[in-house]
């Protein structure tokens, strides 16, 4: 048993960290550190810096720009991104649409879309959730009717993260309403956001931020060549995507950075209340435990070459609880006399982080998954 990275892994980490430290533009780093709004340009600028370095899509095959890193290196890279405080790498193109096209796309689709995703020419978003379909994804109602060489799409998506930045959206749509098993009438479509009939309406969250949207489709014509995989087989694609890469849902790097910041803050403010310090210690311990748990999954993955089981959901559950705990502590650490600062930044961040236990499969859904898949209940 050895909990430490190997010398090679340590050296990889140090090199990665050094490069990120040197190449992350200061203005972007400051914006992230201060929880400021990141524009489309901010996100794409960082994307392109990584693309130029060849690090924007480590998991892709070498021929499409991947790095050939093993799972541990990929994990280290992502944690370092979090730790250094980089802008988020928006997952919709690189870690969602890309892998789907690589697995299910035609050669033409790959050639058309993958390089543009890689280089940050296209900004992608995800069209899964609908007003009536959250946890119960298969109940989605947005309809696509084949008509000649195109589909006509009608319906509505919701919670579309950064839809207002996007050039393209990948959607799950219903292409057959007659089937008894709802999963069997769903298809996976790529839709150009500039197509007439698409309306994006902002959904402002309680922290006041514009991050998610409603997307309305009214007689939107989508060329049939934008169908991925077979018609009515979209659920296969969706399941592949859900099970794809969930080694970094714990966001340990980012939480380590937040923890370090909180500790700084606490020592500046000279907070000595044992109650507060205990909560801080318990969060730190929880994060230590989560990191080791994560490494244990990684070790198993590397050893067996198998993707992780459903129990990897615990990384998301614990990781998000830690993120929320950190923002809550940060708000409590602030002098209550600084209500303006709380209203300006800490409070909205606390509000915003409540979403982490809801999105990307709520923690209740994650518990259902573990109960069913891992525990056999």
């Amino acid at each position, binding site marked *: 048993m050895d909990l430490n990275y190997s010398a090679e892994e340590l050296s990889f980490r140090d090199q990665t960290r050094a490069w990120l430290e040197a190449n992350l533009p200061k203005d972007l780093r400051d914006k992230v550190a201060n929880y400021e709004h990141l524009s489309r340009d901010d996100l794409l600028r960082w994307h392109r810096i990584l693309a130029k370095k060849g690090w924007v899509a480590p998991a892709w095959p070498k021929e499409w720009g991947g790095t050939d890193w093993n799972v541990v290196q990929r994990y280290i890279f992502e944690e370092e991104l979090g730790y250094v405080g980089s802008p988020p790498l928006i997952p919709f193109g690189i870690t969602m649409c890309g892998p789907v096209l690589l697995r299910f796309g035609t050669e033409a689709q790959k050639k058309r879309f993958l390089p543009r995703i890689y280089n940050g020419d296209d900004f992608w978003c995800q069209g899964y*959730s609908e007003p*009536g*379909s*959250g*946890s*119960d994804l298969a*109940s989605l109602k947005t309809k696509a009717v084949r008509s000649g060489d195109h589909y006509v799409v009608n319906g509505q998506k*919701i*919670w579309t993260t950064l839809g207002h930045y996007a050039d393209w959206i990948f959607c799950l749509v219903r292409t057959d309403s007659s089937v008894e098993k709802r999963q069997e009438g769903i298809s996976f479509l790529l839709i150009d956001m500039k197509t007439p009939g698409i309306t994006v309406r902002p*959904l*402002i*969250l*309680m922290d*006041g931020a514009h991050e*998610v949207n409603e997307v309305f489709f009214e007689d939107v014509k989508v060329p049939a060549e934008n169908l991925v995989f077979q018609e009515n087989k979209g659920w296969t694609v969706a399941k592949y995507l859900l099970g794809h890469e969930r080694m970094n849902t714990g966001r340990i790097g980012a939480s380590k950075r937040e923890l370090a910041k909180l500790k700084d803050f606490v020592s500046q403010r000279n907070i000595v*209340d044992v*109650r*507060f310090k205990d909560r801080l210690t318990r969060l730190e311990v929880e994060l230590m435990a989560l990191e080791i748990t994560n490494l244990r999954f990684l070790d198993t993955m590397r050893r067996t070459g198998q993707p992780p089981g459903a129990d990897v959901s615990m990384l998301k559950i614990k990781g998000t609880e830690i993120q929320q705990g950190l923002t809550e502590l940060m708000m*409590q650490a602030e*002098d*209550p*006399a*600084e*209500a*303006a600062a*709380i*209203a*300006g930044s800490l*409070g*909205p961040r*606390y*509000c915003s982080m*409540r*979403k982490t*236990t*809801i*999105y990307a499969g*709520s*923690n*209740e859904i994650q*518990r259902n998954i573990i109960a069913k898949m891992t525990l056999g209940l």
Partner: protein
Amino acid sequence: MNFDYNEEQQLLADSVRRYLQKDYDFEARKKIVASNEGWSAAVWAQFAEMGLMGLPLPADYGGFGGGAVDLMGVMEAFGDALVVEPYLPTVMAARLLGKHPILSSVAEGKTRLALAHTEAGARHRPGHVNVVARKTGNGWTIEGEKKAVAGAPIADMLVVSAKGPDGVALFLVESPSAEVKINAFRALDETRSADIVFKGAKAEKIDGGLAQIEDAIDFGTALVCAEAVGAMKFACDTTLEYLKTRKQFGVPIGTFQALQHRMVDMFIAYEQAKSMACLACSKVDASANATERARSVSAAKIKISDNARHVSQEAVQLHGGMGMSEEMKVSHTFRRLTVIAEQFGGADYHLERFAGLQ
């Protein structure tokens, strides 16, 4: 033993509730919050008209001499509707004005007050006062900085705590003025607040010191407990409604047992909080001594803080994405309850205080 409001209390609470339902629904409130001023003069006038302003004031000044229990039902209604007008700051400050003639104007709704007491680093300790009061000729001047003064941008007069020659004393100051600089901001719960710099502001000394400040803060804390109960009630009711109507997998999500049990725990948290709000308000009105009052208020605030956090977080979580949306009232209730959890001290502060009062 009797947990009902008396007839007047119930009538008043009902009429406030009816008024708020009619004229202060979520859409109306949204407009008020978004306005430059951040409050509604019309609503304030209506409060005065209904007798809310005079309620806690002495009879000689147009008031009814009401106590915390008399205000409980009103505060619950305010918590339900998320009222942002500076009612609590005004009645807390008024409590410190004894029989000052200005109270008549407060009762009529013409004057709004705020209590300028909090300072940087105080962390709720009432004796932490560094603002200075100096005797000048036949008056006083105030020098220094107060922080996070609720309602200050809207107030006409401030009751200010300051260190005078004989320790902490209280002063009445007009606001704003050249010597009273108001740095206003919108707090996390969308009420208006301000940091204030006093630069030799002219002040009128009023009676009272630290003991009166503690009394006023306990009074305010008890009222905010009642407000929290109203807000928690809304959070529980609206979440229950959501569980009954939102369908997933072909059934209302309220049929899922894990969510049912969490809803039950929210409901119990609300009931336990309500019990403690009753205790705090009763004891503020009828304690034999300040220690008994302080113990009850701190005990209540411990529970209210814990349960406000629990109920608000669960309400959002059980709403799923919808709970995060600014368009849903519950997200604003979440913000208000988040602020209430720490207002006048969170559980940590009151645990410390309670233990010191054995």
